[in-house]
Structures are given as C-alpha cells and as structure tokens.
C-alpha cells in the first residue's frame, strides 16, 4: 500500500512542462468568451434569465435569484472579462474564481437550462482555480516576471485529463442500455428529422445509419480516452474526436459543446507537442528559467478537496441506483451524470388548482407563466412539475388568501414508446415536499 501510494505520489508530483496546461487555459478561455458572446448575441440572456416570471431553482439553492436587467448583463460582462482573463493569464486566479462563480451562479438560476456541457464548464472552471496555468505564456508573467515558471506538478495536467476521460467514459456507460444498443434509440427518431442536412442528410433516413451512429457513439465514448492516452493511437484518435464532434455539431442543436471538446482534448497531447506549439509564438521563452522547481507539495486542503471532488464525480453518475423505478421515467439521479443525447422524452401536463370546500376548480395553463422551453422541460421532469405546482399554490394563496390543492394530469413518453400517465393525478402536489427522497407520486412506468 505504501509503495503504491508513493508511486502514485511520485507520479502526480513529477515535474512537467507547463505547455499543455497553458494551451488548455487559452483554449478554454477563448471558447468561453466565444460562448458568452454567442449567448449574448442570440438574446438568450434576456430570454432565459430576465423575461421568465418563474425560475426552476435547484433544491437547496432556492436562494439563487436572477438579477434582472441590467444585473444579468453585468454578470455576463464580468463572466466575459473573466474568461478573457483566463485566456490571457491575466490576474489569473481572480479571473478563474470569478468565472467559476458567475458561470455557476447563472447555471443555478434555472434548471430548465441545464446542459451537461454547462456542468462540465463549471467543473473545469473550478479546477482551473487550483492550478498554476498562468505561470508562463501569460500577462501575469509580464506583469510579474518573478512568477514565471515552466515547471508544474504533473497532477495539474492529469486532473483535466482525468476529468475529460470521466466525461467520455460515463457518457459511454450511460449508453449501455438496451434501447440504445438494440433499438438505436433515440437516434432512430432524431436522425430522420435531420434528413435535410446538407451532404449526409440523404442517408439519415436509413435505419442502419441510426445503428451505426449509436454503436459508434457508444464505442467512441467508452474508448476515446484510452486511445487518446496511448501515444501510438493518439493522432488517429484525435482525428476521430474532430470528426465525431463536428458530426454532432452538424446534426444536433448542441451549441458550443463540440468545439469545446475538440480544443479541450488537446491536453492529451504530449509535452513536446505543446512546447512546439508555444515555441511558434514565444520562441524566446523556452526553458529560460526551466530549472526552477515548482512547489512539489500540494496543500492538504487542496489535496482533500480534490480527492473529495473526484470521489463525488465517481459517485454522481451512479446515484440513480439508489432509487427504484426506471431512470428515464422518474429521472431521479439523471442530471450531473453525463447522460448526453440519451433519450427522446416528451410530455404534456394540465394543472388544476382546487378549493374543494368552495367547489372551486381552476384550470391553469403553464404557458401563462412559463416560457415554451420551461414548459417543455417541466413536462418531462417530475421535480419541475412539483416545483410548478408549489408555485401555483403560493400564487393562489396570495390571490385567494388561502392555499389551494394542486393536481396535475400529465403524460410522458420515452423514446417514442407511446405516452403514459406520468404523475399521479389524484395526489395533491401542494402537500408534497421537495427533496431527494423517492418520488412515490410519480406513477410507475406502465408496460
């Protein structure tokens, strides 16, 4: 045990050149800046964080509130500057911290907008706070030449490789389900709807294509970290990364994610590759102070934080096993698990606010309170249905001076297998507590 521990310790603390980390820093910062500009230009700041009347907060984070106009724009402006700071290595620790805080804050406002890749961004931003990615090729080293150090402990690079590998691998594990493997679902549903895509569109109507994509996607996710790690296959693997992500970008509405992954995976490349890359821009920088040892010790706080973080990362994708029922149906433990493009789910819900003793029953249309996207997301996710029911309860309590009962008649369908009753229509949702306990008020998936 001691030996293993020592070896691991040696392995993680060995001195590495900073080049891969610096490339990663710049690539990530630039991508984030581009994402923020795109988000802003599309008018999504207003659409997602200013216009809605109601926000689906995360359980335990109900205190996170949007800041309205111009507050949200200011937040995004700060986030953009922080992303630029990361890319340039300017006031790096502050930039990374500020970026992590602003980005995560925005993501916590409304789970409607949850995307695995936003979660990924939060994680990477968090990790960047702890690594000295700015100690070369950066504005900070121009400001303070003493800071310059081309040596970093290996763990500061490996942690990103590990994180990226986990994203791919868990995404692959999630695809190991019967419908994905044997029925090519949901791609069999999605691909034909993209038959108008230029060039490849014409083949998307064929069933075998959905199978080929499903299987390729599955094997890609499960194996790509290993092929990227292995020097002999790395180059071909990276070409596959490019091909895979550009294909998904052409076919699906997944925004910046493909491009973020394409540049992030560069970190798998060797020290020499990155050194050569940087030498093109900073020819004089090479090893001037290379022999300066980076501090080999890692503060205990950072160490335990990172160990805890990795443990959490390993746990979250499997927490669904703690709940009974069909994961795709109840979605208990679905988020934060790298379940990307995994199912086609749709739903419908119709709410009734009731004061039975007054014989008063009011039908409520979610579209009067929610954006189309919020409503669509709510219709398929029980925790959001419950949240909206509570929102209605509180609204009507203000309006009528008395809390009503709230019922929902809802249907959902997974992977085109036909809609079924979703939430128990006889349960008064206003009396159900939110939380991580099993949602017994979601009807079991009927065969």
């Amino acid at each position, binding site marked *: 045990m001691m030996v293993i521990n020592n070896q691991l310790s040696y392995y993680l603390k060995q001195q590495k050149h900073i080049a891969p980390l610096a490339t990663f820093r710049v690539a990530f910062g630039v991508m984030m800046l581009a994402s923020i500009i795109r988000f802003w230009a*599309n008018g*999504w700041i207003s*659409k*997602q964080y200013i216009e809605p009347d109601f926000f689906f907060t995360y359980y335990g984070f109900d205190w996170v509130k949007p800041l309205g106009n111009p507050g949200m724009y200011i937040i995004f402006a700060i986030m953009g500057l922080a992303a630029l700071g990361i890319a340039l290595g300017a006031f790096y620790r502050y930039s990374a911290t500020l970026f992590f805080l602003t980005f995560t804050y925005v993501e916590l406002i409304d789970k409607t*907008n949850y*995307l*695995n890749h936003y979660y990924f961004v939060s994680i990477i931003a968090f990790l960047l706070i702890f690594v000295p990615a700015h100690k070369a090729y950066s504005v900070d080293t121009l400001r303070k030449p003493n800071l310059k150090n081309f040596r970093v402990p290996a763990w500061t690079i490996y942690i990103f490789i590990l994180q990226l590998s986990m994203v791919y691998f868990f995404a692959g594990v999630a695809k190991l389900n019967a419908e994905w493997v*044997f029925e090519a679902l949901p791609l069999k*549903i*999605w691909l*034909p*709807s*993209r*038959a*108008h*895509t230029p060039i490849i569109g014409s083949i998307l*109507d*064929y*069933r*075998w294509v959905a*199978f*080929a994509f499903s*299987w390729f996607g599955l*094997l890609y996710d499960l194996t790509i970290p290993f092929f990227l790690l292995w020097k*002999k*296959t790395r180059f071909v693997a990276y070409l596959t990364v490019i091909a895979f992500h550009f294909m998904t970008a052409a076919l*699906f*509405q*997944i925004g*910046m994610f493909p491009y973020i992954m394409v540049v992030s995976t560069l970190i798998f490349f060797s020290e020499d590759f990155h050194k050569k890359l940087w030498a093109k821009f900073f020819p004089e920088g090479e090893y001037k102070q290379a022999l300066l040892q980076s501090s080999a010790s890692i503060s205990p706080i950072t160490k335990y934080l990172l160990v805890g973080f990795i443990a959490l990362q390993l746990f979250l994708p499997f927490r669904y096993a703690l709940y009974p029922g069909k994961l795709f149906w109840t979605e208990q433990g679905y988020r934060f698990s790298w379940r*990307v*493009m*995994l*199912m*086609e*789910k*749709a*739903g*419908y819900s119709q709410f*009734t606010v*009731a004061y039975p003793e007054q*014989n*008063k*029953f*009011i*039908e409520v*249309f979610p579209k009067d309170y929610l954006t*189309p*996207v919020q409503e*669509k997301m709510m219709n*398929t996710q029980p925790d959001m249905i419950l949240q909206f029911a509570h929102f209605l309860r509180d609204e009507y309590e203000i309006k009528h001076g008395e809390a009503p009962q709230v019922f929902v*008649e809802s*249907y*959902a*369908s997974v992977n*085109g*297998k*036909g*809609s079924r009753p979703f939430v128990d229509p006889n349960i008064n949702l206003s009396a159900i507590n939110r939380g991580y306990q099993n949602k017994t008020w979601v009807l079991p998936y*009927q065969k």
Partner: protein
Amino acid sequence: MRNIKIFFSILIAALLSACDNQSGTEKVDFDREAFLVNMADEVIQPSIQDFSIKADALTSASIAFEGEQSDGNLIVLRNALKDLWLSYQHLAYVQVVPNVNLRDRVNIFPASASKIEENINTGNFVLGAASNVDAKGFPALDYLLFGTGETNAEVIAYFQQENLGSSRLQYVADLVEDIQTAADSMQEGWETYRAVFIENTGTDVGSGTSILVNEYNFQFDIRLKNAKIGFPAGGNPRTGGVLSPEKVEAYYSGWSAELAEASVLASLAVFTGESYQSGANGLGMDDYLTALSAVDRNGDDLSTAIISQTNAALEEMEKIEAPYSVVATTEGSQLVTVYNTLQAVIPLIKVDMTSAMSVSITFQDNDGD
C-alpha cells in the same frame, strides 16, 4: 496494432449482423417535400381562399344590410356569417401565415355584450386593441345579429333605433371590415410565405412541419377541447368546475354543435392531408407518422390511434341533439363525455406525434433531455 484490427473486425461484423436481418435497407420512406407541397397547395391555400371568398360574401351582405334592414337582408347576413364561421373551423388548424394571428382576431368567445354596447355608445374604440378581443369577430356579430332581440323584427328594430341605430350598423360594418382585413392579410401573407413553408423539410423551429404541427395541436387542445367543450362544461370537467353555458361558441345563434363538429372534421382532414376542394386523400401528418413507424403505447400504429380516437369524439358529439348552451347547464352532461374523448387524443398528438417527428420548439442549445 493487431489487437486493434481484430477489435474493429469484430465490431464491423457485429454491426453488419445487427442490421443485416432484412431491416438493413429499411428506411423512413417519406417524401417530405411532397408532403409540404400537398399541405400548402391542397390544404392550406384552398382553405385561405375559401375563407376569403366567404369573407367577401359577408362584406357584401353587411353592406346590403346597412343599406336596408330588411328581414331578407338580415337572413342573408346571418347565413354569410355562418358560412364564414364554418370555413374558419378548417383554417384555424392551418393558420400558419406569420403575423396574422387569426384566432385571436376573429373568434375569441364568449363575446362581451356589455363591452360591445359600450363601444357602440361611446364610439370611442380601437378594434385592434387587446382589450377588445372579446368585442369583435364572429362572436360579436353573433351577439349583434342574434342576441339583440328574440325575433327578427326585434333585431331589425335594434338596428333601426332612433339614437343608436346608425352607430350599431356602423359597428357591424367595422367588425366585418376587420374580418375582411384579416382575410386579406392572410391571403397576401400566404403568397410570400408559401415558399418559406415548403423550403425547410426538417422539423426544427420555423420549419413548415413544426409550425403546422404546433398550430394543429394548439387549435385542437386549447380552442377545440378547452374553449368549445371544456369551459362551458365546467373548466376541466374531470376535476370539476363551474358550469358556464354562456361560454359556448355561437351562444346566441345556437350554432355551437355544428361549429364544434366542423372543427373535429377539419382536424381529421388536416391530419390526413385531405384536399380541401376535392376531398381526395393526400400526403398528410398521418402518412408521415406511418413512415416513421410511430406507435402508441400499445405498439399500434399512431396515425390509426389518432384517427379512431378523434372519430370516437365525433360520435359522441353527434349524439348531442340540443345546443351546447342547453346541454352545458347540467352536471356530468354529454359534453363531459365529449371532453374526455377529446382529451384522450391530446397525449397522442402533443406527446407521441411531436416526439416521433422530433418537432423542436426552440433554437436554444439542447443536449437531449
């Protein structure tokens, strides 16, 4: 390297064997462009055309009635209203032309009689204002031509009243003009929009298919099931509610049943891509779903399920003899049965159909639920 070769050989072999069982060449065999062209030229365009012709007829009848408030002119005007209202039932499912918003413009019911009278009295109103949605369109004409007197003579007297008669006639003329304008802008808008409608054969936001499906669903769920049946029969009759017979469509003329049945028939015609003129079957949403092998929860053909469930609703409606405003005065009436049969269609069209076609509602990034 050898291991990799073996690995990929097995992979390819497995892949081929997985698809080789006669499903290998299976595909979604559907001409999406032909579908959109059929919907455009056989369903939507003739529907807009018909609505426009009938709006013209209403305008002429209104002018005649304004000139002379005879019994004959009143009857002609009423019939013109009914023809147009029936024609609208079809167009409402396919009002895909942007920026016309026909539904809110011509058929928000119940009409507010008091608001209409107030507008007439003050003469100070803008029909396009949001506050006047229930003081215009067919329901307002329904009130003015039927609700202002028990007999034809009383209605005519209402329009010939000394002080307000001319203002009342003017209000009718204004209402008809507003409808005519809507019909015209629908027709003009369609001329340029047709090309856009058939251009994108996908189902992303803005594509003809996604707009069509959303309009169809909205009309069926909100305006047929809820407005025509549910609200008068007590909101969502499943959970109980206050009976509101005054909320039926065409309350004063008593055409509610005919209009609602026309709406259900129109939904079927639109769903199956039936030619508006000839009634011939063309490529419709039903054919698309069948090509996609879409099934309901029992594994049966989804198109068939939608059609038969819609027909079941129609059968229940045909059993009703009295005007809905009378039927809706009793608890647990036949309207509740109609509501329930219509409600059974909703998950099929709003969940199963949109899911099978992957109809998108947003440009926002999405990583697949």
